[in-house]
């Protein structure tokens, strides 16, 4: 009787462990699409913010800034003034 009892107990424990593992897998599987949606949303937000940065940093705006007195000291360097380290 005792060996049979211990066998049944072992099987039961293994079964519980297996079911618990399957539950964890299912939990992760449920999270995957949610994470996928979050990632996609972040990518699109990034794209939209990048667009807004480009709107601000566009050449028209930068050339206007260049005309302001506080930036008048800035000059475009000539080609022969640029040190090429290559």
């Amino acid at each position: 009787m005792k060996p049979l009892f211990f066998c049944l107990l072992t099987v039961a424990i293994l079964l519980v462990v297996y079911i618990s593992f399957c539950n964890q897998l299912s939990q992760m599987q449920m999270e995957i699409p949610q994470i996928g949606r979050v990632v996609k949303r972040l990518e699109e937000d990034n794209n939209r913010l990048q667009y807004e940065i480009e709107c601000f940093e566009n050449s028209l705006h930068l050339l206007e800034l260049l005309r302001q007195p506080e930036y008048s000291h800035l000059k475009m360097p000539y080609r022969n003034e640029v040190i090429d380290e290559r």
Partner: protein
Amino acid sequence: MKDKKQLMIVCVSIFAVLSLLLTRFYTLQVVENAKWNQIANGQHYFCVREPFLRGTFFSNTSLRPHHPEDPQRLVVEVRKVHLYVDPESIPEAYKKEIAHQLIACVDVSDDEKDRFSDQFHARSRSRKLKMWMDPHQQQDVLDWWFPYAKEHNIAKNALFFVPDYQRSYPFGKLLGQVLHTVQKQRDELTKQASPTGGLELYFDELLSGQLGLRRLMRSPINALETGEVLSEPEHGADIYLTINHTLQVIAEEEIEKGVKWSKAKNGWAVMMQPQTGEILALAQYPFFDPADYSNYYNHTHLIEHAAIKAISDAEEPGSSFKPITVAIALLANHELNQRGEKELFHPEEKIATSNGKFPGRSKPISDTGHHKYLNMYMGLQKSSNIYLGRIVERVIKKFGDGWYRNALCQHFGLGEKTGIELPAESAGLVPRPGKLHPNGTLEWSVPTPYSLAMGHNLQLNSIQFLRAMSVLANGGYLVQPTLVRKIVKGDGVCLLDHTLPSRRESFPRTLPIEVVQEVVKTMKYDTKKGGTARRGDVWGYTEVGKTGTAEKVIRGSYSKNQHSSNFIGFTPVIDPAFVLLVVIDEPEHKFIPGVGGNHYGGMCAAPVFREIARRSLEYLGVPPDDPFGYPIGDPRHDPEKGDWLVEVKQLQEKYEKWNK
């Protein structure tokens, strides 16, 4: 016996029932297997379309050596949403309140409020309420809607959002006519956008993508996976342009100032790299705003600003064409030299220019000033129609009309489209000997060459003209103009690469270097004292240029009050950074006392050329190659050391000696 019979009946009945079941089982599982599988799949799975991204345009950020820059997008696909309503899911009692709340939430204009409210009463399961909403606007609506729907027991999906991508322009109106845009309404099935013109239209097939397909399992509460991708979306190809965004801004700012100053109808400036044919800037004023395209197409007085006049308008260039005439005359000399024959003329030869009578002309040709004698350098500097006519007269006598026409077409690429990557390019017109106009008159008659010599009786679009001038700028090669550096598909495969050295090596030499050098030397006089293009002098740099003021042909005859004024040139003279053409269309016709005609190319177009050239050379980092070439009064001015000032003075002395 009776028991046996009963037993038999029961057995047969059971057998019959079991047989029926088995048959039914076989019918369902084997015969109708496909049908029930399909129904089951339809109930368990659903398919969604995966959106694609339309290809985008990138600016040319490789112009400045040692200045690495990230690729700059000129067009961006920004994710937006459209708000829809399912009117049949909303009880009648709540429709007015929901409409009212949404009007406040999504900022509907007053004239759209009625149309907005009417959507709630349509007999439909899907009505579009508002397009192109930002994600934060979507969140505002949902933050209000979900609690409201729960409180009043309305289905949450009575209001739903459909994602979409809107073509957005970080640079606003920059390069509007060239890029153009796509219409806001897309095809419902394919989700493809319809282009309105420009590069969007020309490259529509490459820019368009294909929707993907993904299969998802239906799950009432939790989805277990992201689904099975049945087909990946195919994004459109990206196009890397030759246009540089900073040079474009410079050109647009200056052309706007120039058009407003001369009170012209419109104007444009085109900048091209003479060695490669790459178009660096193409600016046109009034501008075209791609984000507001419908406004242009709905108003007849605005629609013309949507066209690229540099491509579609072929006009007579006028006097700015004279360097080409000089080149052809020198080419004739070169051919005679090679044959061992005497030249038609010498550049220093003193030619009488008082008499403007030419064969076939009822009226003599005249110059703006009276000149008794001119040589080639003086002839171009003073923009003398008679001098150019005289040397062309010798060319025609020796070589004939056909040779002259061939020289224009084969050596300078005139009379045919350049193949620039834009729709609606005009081929222009070079008259053909023996061909008749629709009205029965000859295209090429006896006096035609003398008109051609001064830039009349032919039509060029701006790209053709730049291409012809580039032959003089790059040492004699006929380049292929282009707006595209590379085209790269969504998967990284390069479909087209114009940056390879083999492209540049394929350009044919069409003018001998000696001819080119002589023409460039002649043009240098024009932007200095005594020339018509003084206002095109780029201080600190060497440059060549020529002005043109052509009367426009209006209803079949030349107009005295409507002109197309232009300036074309390149700078620096040695290894030019660019060739630049500025066209001012119909400047105000008036005389400014002590200065001259406002409508002359030297007055309205030359200053625009100077400013675009100066600022562009600064941006490109080109060091000044004429450090003493500044106006009188500037401390840097030196009449002995300034480029070409000594030569100009010598020419002026000779001119005064010949014409006193």
